[in-house]
C-alpha cells in the first residue's frame, strides 16, 4: 500500500508493522525472495553480524553495495558497520562525517562523557555523527529502503536500531535552460531528474509555509518517489483528496516517467485529449499551484504534472503573464487561430477544392485549377500523402542524432517541397498548406498539438467524402466530446463552457494583472481573491496645481 509520508527522509518508523501486508501484491512473498515490502515487518536484531548477514542475503549479487565494518575509536568492543550504494551515496560525506567522526574524532568528546557500550547508540547519534540528516529505523525494510535510496546506514553492534545518514549525492544533470518550453522573457531554468532539486525549485518560487509537498513511493519494483505539491488554503481540499485517492489506487511494478501516472489517473482514458498537464518549467508549476492546482512530481523525470488541466491552458504560456497584456493577448489570438488552422486547414482545403469550387473567387479558382492541372492524384490523396510525409519528417527530426539533422532537413525540404512540385506530383498550394499546418501546430501546447494533429486525419477523410458538411460534423463531434470531458471534476472547456464571465479575462485575451483579481472560479474556488482591489496604476495628481 502506497502511503503518504511527511518529510522525505522520515520513513514511517514504527509504522512498518501496522502497514505491512495490506496490498494483494505484498501478501504473496515467494520463498527467499525478499521484496522490499514484506521486510518492513522484520525487526533488526541486536547482533551486528546477524543483521549484516541478513542484509547481505537480501542484497546478494548487488555488486554496487558497499559494506564497511570498523571499530569505534576508543573501544574496540563496539563494532560498527556502514552500508551504502556506491555511486548513490556521497563518499566524502561517508568518510568525513561518519567514519572520521567515529574512528578519529571521537576521543575529542570522550573526556567529558562516560562512554559505555549501552550508551554508544545515543552518543553516536547525539554527539559524534556530523551528518546533516539523521534518522533511525528498527526494521530491515527500513534499512534496505534507505540504502537503495542513497542514504548510508550505520549499524551499531548491540542495538536493534540502525542510524540512517542522509548522504544522498549521486551524479545528476545540473539545472539547465528549458529545452522544450522556451521563453524570451522569464526565468530560464527547468526541472531536472532529481526530485529533491525539483521540489527546491518550486519552494524557491513560493516561500510560504502553506506550500505542502507530500511524499509517497509508487511502483512495486522501482519504488519511485512521487511528491504531491499544493498550496494549502488555495487548493480545494476535495481535489487533494481525489488526487491522493487516485494515486493510491496505482499498483504497478514501475513508474519511470510522469506519463505512467498520467494514464493511470486521468478521467477519460479513451479520449484523444490530455486531461493532465505536464511541464518542465518551475515558474509554470508555481503559477498553477497559485491558481489552486496540485502538482505531481516524480523522481527521475524533469516533467511535472499538474491537475486539473483545462483545454484553454494549451494556449496559455508563461510568457503571456510576463509580457504586457496587449502583446500577450495578440499572441493568444494568434495561437487560437493557429490551433484552428492546424486542425482544419487541410480538410477545409480538400472540401473546397473537391466539393465547393463555387466558394472561391474566380481568379483564385483559376490559379488553383492551373496548379492542379498537372497533378495526377486526387486532392485528398495528395494532401494525405503530404501530411504523412510531414509527420514522418517531424518524427525523424525528433529521433535523429544531432549530427545528421541537417542532412535530413535538407533532403526533407528539397525532396518533399521543391522536387515534388517540380515533378508535378504535388500542387504548390498543397505544399504551402501542409507547411503552414505543420508550423501552426507548434504554436500551442505540445501535448495538445499531438492530439489535434491526430484528429486532423479523420476530419480530412470526412472532408473528402462529405465536403464541408463532413468537416462541420467532425468539428461538432470534437466539440461535443470536449464538453463532456472533465479533468479531476473540472469541466474541460471551462471557462468557456460552462461560461464564466470573469474567467474570460484569461482566455482569448490576457487581461492586465490589475484586472485579474480572482483565480479561475472552478479551480481556485477555495480562495478566489488573489489581489487587492484598485491596483490599476494612476498617474499622480498634477504637480503644478497649488
Amino acid at each position, binding site marked *: 500500500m502506497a502511503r503518504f509520508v511527511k518529510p522525505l527522509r522520515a520513513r514511517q518508523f514504527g509504522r512498518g508493522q501496522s502497514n505491512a501486508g495490506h496490498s494483494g501484491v505484498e501478501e504473496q512473498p515467494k520463498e527467499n525472495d525478499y521484496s522490499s515490502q514484506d521486510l518492513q515487518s522484520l525487526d533488526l536484531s541486536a547482533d551486528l553480524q546477524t543483521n549484516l548477514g541478513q542484509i547481505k542475503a537480501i542484497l546478494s549479487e548487488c555488486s554496487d553495495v558497499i559494506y564497511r565494518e570498523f571499530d569505534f575509536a576508543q573501544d574496540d568492543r563496539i563494532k560498527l558497520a556502514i552500508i551504502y550504494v556506491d555511486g548513490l551515496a556521497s563518499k566524502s560525506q561517508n568518510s568525513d562525517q561518519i567514519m572520521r567522526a567515529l574512528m578519529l574524532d571521537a576521543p575529542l568528546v570522550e573526556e567529558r562523557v562516560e562512554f559505555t557500550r549501552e550508551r554508544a547508540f545515543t552518543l553516536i547519534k547525539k554527539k559524534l555523527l556530523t551528518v546533516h540528516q539523521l534518522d533511525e529505523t528498527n526494521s530491515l525494510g527500513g534499512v534496505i529502503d534507505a540504502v537503495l535510496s542513497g542514504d548510508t546506514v550505520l549499524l551499531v553492534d548491540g542495538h536493534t536500531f540502525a542510524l540512517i545518514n542522509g548522504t544522498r549525492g549521486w551524479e545528476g544533470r545540473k539545472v539547465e535552460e528549458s529545452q522544450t518550453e522556451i521563453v524570451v522573457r522569464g526565468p530560464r531554468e527547468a526541472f531536472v531528474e532529481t526530485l529533491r532539486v525539483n521540489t527546491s525549485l518550486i519552494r524557491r518560487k513560493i516561500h510560504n509555509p502553506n506550500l505542502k509537498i507530500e511524499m509517497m513511493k509508487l511502483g512495486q519494483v522501482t519504488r519511485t518517489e512521487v511528491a504531491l505539491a499544493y498550496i494549502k488554503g488555495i487548493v480545494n481540499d476535495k481535489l487533494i483528496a481525489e488526487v491522493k485517492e487516485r494515486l493510491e489506487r496505482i499498483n504497478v511494478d514501475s513508474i519511470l516517467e510522469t506519463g505512467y501516472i498520467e494514464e493511470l489517473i486521468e478521467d477519460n482514458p479513451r479520449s484523444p485529449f490530455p486531461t493532465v498537464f505536464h511541464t518542465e518549467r518551475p515558474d509554470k508549476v508555481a503559477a498553477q499551484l497559485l491558481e489552486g492546482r496540485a502538482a505531481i512530481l516524480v523522481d527521475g523525470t524533469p516533467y511535472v504534472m499538474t491537475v486539473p488541466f483545462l483545454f484553454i491552458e494549451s494556449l496559455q504560456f508563461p510568457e503571456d503573464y510576463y509580457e504586457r497584456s496587449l502583446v500577450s493577448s495578440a499572441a493568444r489570438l494568434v495561437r487560437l487561430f493557429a490551433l484552428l488552422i492546424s486542425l482544419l486547414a487541410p480538410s477545409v482545403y480538400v472540401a473546397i477544392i473537391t*466539393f465547393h*469550387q463555387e466558394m472561391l473567387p474566380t481568379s483564385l*479558382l*483559376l490559379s488553383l*485549377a492551373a496548379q492542379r492541372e498537372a497533378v495526377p492524384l486526387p486532392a485528398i490523396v495528395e494532401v494525405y500523402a503530404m501530411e504523412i510525409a510531414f509527420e514522418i519528417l517531424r518524427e525523424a527530426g525528433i529521433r535523429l542524432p544531432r549530427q545528421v539533422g541537417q542532412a535530413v532537413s535538407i533532403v526533407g525540404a528539397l525532396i518533399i517541397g521543391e522536387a515534388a512540385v517540380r515533378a508535378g506530383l504535388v500542387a504548390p498550394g498543397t505544399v504551402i498548406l501542409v507547411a503552414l499546418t505543420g508550423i501552426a501546430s507548434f504554436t500551442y501546447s505540445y501535448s495538445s498539438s499531438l492530439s489535434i494533429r491526430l484528429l486532423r486525419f479523420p476530419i480530412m477523410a470526412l472532408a473528402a467524402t462529405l*465536403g464541408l458538411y463532413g468537416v462541420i460534423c467532425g468539428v461538432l463531434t470534437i466539440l461535443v466530446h470536449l464538453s463532456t470531458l472533465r479533468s479531476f471534476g473540472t469541466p474541460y472547456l471551462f471557462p468557456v463552457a460552462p461560461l464564466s464571465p470573469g474567467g474570460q479575462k484569461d482566455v482569448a485575451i490576457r487581461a492586465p494583472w490589475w484586472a485579474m483579481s480572482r483565480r479561475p472560479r472552478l479551480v481556485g474556488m477555495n480562495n478566489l481573491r488573489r489581489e487587492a482591489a484598485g491596483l490599476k496604476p494612476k498617474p499622480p495628481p498634477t504637480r503644478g496645481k497649488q
Partner: protein
Amino acid sequence: MRNKLACLALLVMIAGVLGGCWSRKEMSELAIVLGAGVDSAPGGQVRLTLQLARTSAFMAGGDGGGGKEPSTWVISDTGETIADVQRKLSAKISRHIYWAHDVILVFGEEAARGGIRKYTNFFSRELQPRETMWVMVARGEAKDILETGSELERTSAQDIGFLARARTGFSVIFKDFIIMLASKGGNPIATMVEIVDRGVISGDIAKDKPTKRKGVALTGTAVFDDDKLVGWLNMTETRGLLWLKGEVLKGVITFPSLTEPGRELSVNIIRGQTEVEPQYDGESVRFYVNIEVEGDLIEQQSVHESVLEEHERNGMEKEMAREIEGKARLALDKAQGEYGLDIFDFGEAFRRKYPREWEKLKDRWNEVFSGAGVEFAVDSHIRRSGLQGRRTSVPE
C-alpha cells in the same frame, strides 16, 4: 432504451446521407465557364456560346509559360433549348461543364428582340449558374463578344465583369434582371455591350509594330418592352437613367462655366440621393424627383471664378444642378416619348404610395407613365476644391 438508441443511431446515419454533398468533383475535371452567350439560330433554335477557361494557361509566372498560352476556349452549338445545347456541347468538351463561375451572361441582339424570357429559365432553374452574374445585351451577336480577348485581364469575360462592377453605366445582375422581368412597375433594362477599338498594344510583346486591338466596352443600356428588346440608351442617357433610378451615383459631372462661356468645370460625385414622389389626383399622375448631390471640384477650365467664394460657388452649384437635370430629362424624354416605357421603376414608387389606385392603372401603366409630368428639384453642393483653391497658373 435499446429502441431509443437504435432510433438515434438511425437518425444520425440518415442525417449523414441527407447532407447531399456526394457530388465530389476534382478541380482538374472541370471545364470552368467564364462567360455564356445566347443567340437565336435559324428555325427557332438557340445557339449557346461558352467561354471556357483553359486552366493550364493560368499558371502563375515561372516556367509555366503563363500568359503565352491562349487562356480561353470559345465553343458554341445550336439546339432546341439551352440544356439541349449544353448536352451537345458536352460531347465536345472532355470535362464537366461547370457554371458556378460564370461571370457574364450575354444575349445577342436578335435573340433579345425576339423575347428574352424564353432563354432565362435555364439559368434560374439550374443549380450551378449564379444569380450574381452580369446580364448584358450585345450590339450584334453574343458569340462575337465572347470571342474577344483582354489586354489587362486573362479573359474577356473577367474583363467585362470588372467593367460591369465598376458601374460606370448601368449594370444589373441576373437576380435583379429576372425580378425586373417579373415586375409590372417597370420595364427591364440591361447593360449594352459592343465591340469597339481598344487602343494599341505596344512594347516588348508586340516587338515591331503596335497592334491595334478590338475589344468590348459597355456603351449604354438596352431597353426592353416586357421581355423584348426595343432600343438603346447611349452613355449620356444612361447617366440620366442612373440619376432617375437613384442608383450608383459616382462619376464625374461636367458643366459649363456661368461667367466664362466655352469653359467647363468637372465635379467628382461623392454622395447622391434620389427620391421620387408620385402624386395622383384621380386623373393625372405627376412625379417630383428630388436629387441631392455632393461632390468635389476636380477640374476647372475657367480662370476668374473661384470655388472659395460663396456666391461664385453657388453659381457653379446651380449650373451643376442644371446639368444633372438636363441629363435626366434626356433619358426621361426618350423613355416617355420614343419608347413609351417606364424604365425607371416609377411604377414601383407609385404602387407604394397608392396601392389601390395602382391596381386600376397597372395594366396600362406605360401609357400613364408616358403622359405623366415630371418635375425636378436638384440640390447640389461642391464640398471640396482638391489641392487648389484658386488657379495658380493665372497671373494675378
